[in-house]
């Protein structure tokens, strides 16, 4: 099992039951012995409004990437609707650099189950699904074991903890598409259709899975809920900065001494995360850039990194907290190659639904690959930026933006490297006419 050594600066809420080195997943006995399902017991005695209020007070924001206030999202569900209401867990952790949900799924499935139960209680739901990406085979199996235990102990089923309320939860395996991490595409896929995004509005809270009111949240978001109910929303909110409640898991990757998944309070300075938790840039090298929230978040130069890592501060810096995947790049990194690789990913994952994303990502991938090979011109550098701007804000869903944002920021902040590639090219190739450089 992958679990890194804890760090004294971590604030352990989500991961408080974890032990290092961890041998097995936290089973139902161990979970219950350490306050597990206490929050559910408490929630069963609360009114739905009280649960939602508590979550609102906690300033918990969606941990999937968009950072939408969770309590507000739950309050959009029309509980009086005659239709069934559904709970959907987005465990399609696909954003490059992100590896936090797998830690929860693998180590403490019961925390997620308890979070789903409380959410289900809050919106009057009797059914939920955990949509896990197909590549997470181990995690799906771990989650299925946890679900079986919860059913056996009566935490799930027709009579949850003897309350008379029924709640059923199961895993649903994705089939390998980044786009299915977009909530409406996820719902399409859950319904057995092609994972294309849906038109919004209506939002899932109005018409989600099978056209019924549905809340879709990230694994980490649901997992934060039990402690909020147990210890109070205000306690949780106080852990972070105003409007950025609680703690979050940060996935540190790249050129660091101690990369891994750490739990930090929102608002911990970005440089502290990198230098203390991550142990600083490896091999004594200098920092070149930080991608703070998954591959789609705009890149930051070292001088831009002296900010607190919370939703609002990163937005102010022109980037985003996203999924919490912080990628640290040292001075030797080839930024052009990296950008070409990122764009190849988005071109591969574009679902093809709308024109700008479908054609734009493929085109950009080809230009960037060419630039990386040293077969570009200065015009091509401008074109990367222009094409990305032509996609940005004009695509059907956020995937187009996710591809455009890094492209624009890389060109803006590391233009010199792009120009150097052209200048240092051994052979000047005006344009490839015979061989495709990128076979997508």
């Amino acid at each position, binding site marked *: 099992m992958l679990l890194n050594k804890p760090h004294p600066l971590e604030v352990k809420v989500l991961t408080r039951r974890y032990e290092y080195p961890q041998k097995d997943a936290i089973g139902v006995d161990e979970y219950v012995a350490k306050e597990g399902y206490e929050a559910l017991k408490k929630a069963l005695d609360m009114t739905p409004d009280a649960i939602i209020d508590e979550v609102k007070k906690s300033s918990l924001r969606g941990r999937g990437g968009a950072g939408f206030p969770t309590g507000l999202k739950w309050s959009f569900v029309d509980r009086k609707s005659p239709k069934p209401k559904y709970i959907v867990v987005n465990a399609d952790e696909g954003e490059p650099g992100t590896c936090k949900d797998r830690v929860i799924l693998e180590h403490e499935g019961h925390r997620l189950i308890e979070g789903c139960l409380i959410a289900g209680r809050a919106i009057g739901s009797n059914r939920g699904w955990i949509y896990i990406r197909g590549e997470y085979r181990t995690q799906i199996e771990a989650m299925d074991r946890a679900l079986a235990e919860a059913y056996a102990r009566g935490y799930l089923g027709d009579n949850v903890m003897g309350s008379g309320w029924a709640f059923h939860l199961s895993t649903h395996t994705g089939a390998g*598409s980044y*786009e299915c991490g977009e909530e409406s595409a996820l719902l399409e896929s859950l319904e057995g259709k*092609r994972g*294309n995004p849906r*038109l919004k509005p209506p939002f899932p809270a109005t018409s989600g899975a099978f056209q019924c009111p549905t809340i879709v949240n990230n694994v980490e978001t649901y997992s934060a809920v039990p402690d909020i109910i147990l210890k109070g929303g205000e306690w949780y909110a106080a852990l972070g900065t105003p409007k950025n409640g609680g703690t979050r898991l940060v996935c540190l990757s790249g050129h660091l001494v101690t990369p891994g998944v750490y739990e930090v309070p929102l608002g911990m300075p970005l440089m502290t995360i990198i230098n203390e938790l991550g142990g600083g840039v490896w091999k004594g090298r200098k920092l070149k850039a930080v991608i703070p929230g998954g591959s789609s978040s705009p890149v930051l130069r070292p001088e831009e990194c002296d900010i607190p890592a919370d939703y609002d501060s990163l937005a102010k810096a022109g980037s985003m907290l996203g999924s919490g995947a912080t990628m640290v790049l040292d001075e030797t990194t080839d930024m052009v190659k990296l950008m070409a690789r990122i764009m190849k990913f988005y*071109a*591969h*994952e*574009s*679902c*093809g*639904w*709308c*024109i*700008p994303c*479908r*054609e*734009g*990502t*493929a*085109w950009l991938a*080809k*230009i960037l690959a*060419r630039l990386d090979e040293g077969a570009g011109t200065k015009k091509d550098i401008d*074109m990367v930026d222009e094409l990305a701007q*032509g996609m940005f*804000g*004009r*695509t*059907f869903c956020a995937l187009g933006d996710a591809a455009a944002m890094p492209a624009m920021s890389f060109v803006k902040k590391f233009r010199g490297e792009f120009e150097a590639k052209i200048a240092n090219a051994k052979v000047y190739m005006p*344009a*490839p006419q015979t*061989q*495709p450089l990128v076979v*997508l």
Partner: protein
Amino acid sequence: MADPITLTINGRALQVPAGTLVIEAAKKHGIEIPAFCYYEGFTLQAACRMCLVEVEKMGKLQPACTLPAAEGMVVLTESPKVVDARKGMLEFLLTNHPLDCPVCDKGGECELQDMVFRYGAGESRFVEIKHHENEKQWSPAVYYDPARCILCYRCVRVCDEGLGVGALGLTYRGVHAEITPSHGDHLECDECGWCIDVCPVGALTSGTYRYKSRPWEMNYAGTICTHCSNGCKTTLSVRNGEVIRANNRDRSGINGEFLCVKGRFGFDFVHSDERLQTPLLRKDGKLEPVSWSEALAAVAAKFGEVKARGGKFGVIGSTRTTNEENYFLQKFARQGLGTANIDHHRSGDVVMLLDALKGKTDALAMVGDLYTTRAALVIGADLSQQHPLLAVQLRADYRHHQSSTFVVTPGEVREDQYAARSVRAKAGEELAAVETLREDLAKHESLVILFSDAIKGDAVRKLVAFGDSLGTAVKYVCLQDYSNSRGAMDMGLLPDLGPGYHAAPATGLNMDQMLAAKDLDVLWVVGANPLEDTALASEGAFVVVQDLFLTETAGRADVVLPAASAYEKTGTVTNVCGEVQRLKQGPKVMGVKSDLEIMGLLAKELGLSLGIWTPDKVFEEIRKTVHGYNVALPVIATGGAAQTTPVNGGVPVTVRPELIRSAGDTLFTSGTLGRYSKMLQGVMEAPGELYKR
């Protein structure tokens, strides 16, 4: 209608009902917002991003196709930001497009070409290798070229939402995404080709038309499909006298752009190798080609001789010839030959329905009513197979107006997909099954009842009595087989009834009696094949046949006169709902004459004075003499459909339900015409089967 709101588009204040989409609001006021994926009447996609507009107080550009107009909204459709976005989208679209316009079928009528011409950049910055996929054949009728496809999903939607077939979907991702038939490499569907028609580019091409012509090299004739009784308007694309395509892109007529496989592809019988192009005369027991004058003289001589000696004539008319021809035929028979023995193949009991509805007005439904009615009841017909337009109308009514459809059939039908209730009833038990729907039907404020030959004779009276007892506004459609089945009835091709259902001066033999009569001297068959499975009892009868092909009946004939098909002549036909529409001549076939001309020449040869035999003059006479046919000429002259109300009083009816026999054609059969259409025969679904969904 919702309360009107005011929005401003490009500085013009426009009033539209609340909830109108911005793209529609603009269109209503003459402002074009370009779009590929937006298609009126089908679900919204917002995929092509061509209709992005600037809206005040909204940061991002908004797709006009999904944005409901709101009070005070300020929209700009030609601002620099919008123009730039549009140009960008077109540039994106052309990156992997093959740009093979010089050889593409769509060249000249391509929406992508038009858009690039109007909104696009003059040159592309794209210098990479294009992504390419080879063309695929999905069926004899439909080909798909993924490289040209812009993925607007129109084809997917018309197939799924419009028809309920759902044969198309999307496979692969990103630039590799392409439309794929549900059977992987081939289509198993209605083969209607609607997908080809709505394709804005040359991605979907037609088996009959591909690589044959440029759109500006053809003449176009808007006429009426000659196959089933629905009377769809079809525009024939004619090149050098040959039809190479049929569609209805201008959406005129009762069917809009819809056509089934017969309408869109089943025109090739016109140029069949087996088409008769010279008269045939039986000499020494063999049919030999002869000149028109020789053939006509032979017929006239025989007719004159038999008439002079008071011999027995039998006249069988057609369900596909024009009203003018049918009218003239019965006039020829009754006045010219002095016989009352005239009939045709009847496929619906219109006579009984008209009598049962006596005194009622507005009780006959038009095709358009099927789209607006609150409820419909289909009895004894596989509508999507036998009456595809009516089925499409009902489905659209359900989709757009949430109407309720009730089905009483012997087996599964496609209408079950959305029917409020489906009841399975064996032959003869339909009325009892209808009775079980009484409460459900009475709930709706309007109802259209469509019934096939399962309801005939007294059952029609009982059905109308049932309709009367519901207390809602009920309209009826008596389903019939062929393009002018209704017109043949209206024009009096009946032994007991003359034009307009007036009692004929004398009652003659019906079709079965004629064929069974041993003493028949002359059998004159115009555009019918009664001897397909029945032998003519009178062995010595002189048989004259006017037809396109050497059918079983023509094979027994003494004289065969090659006739023009409906596509090669002018005149009017009346569809299943009693709507009169005008035929316009498209192709030309050497050696044939229209039935009207043949009859006129025969009359001349016989020295009869039956009036001038041009379609216009005969129609003038019909308008004066046949009840309900006094339709407004400009309506039909401009390609419209005018409803006829043949009678409003009682009909002197003779109950002969055994004569009402539908041929039970499927989507892929069409009587004798279908046999000579290679396309109808060539698709893998042929011949099709009723009640198999």
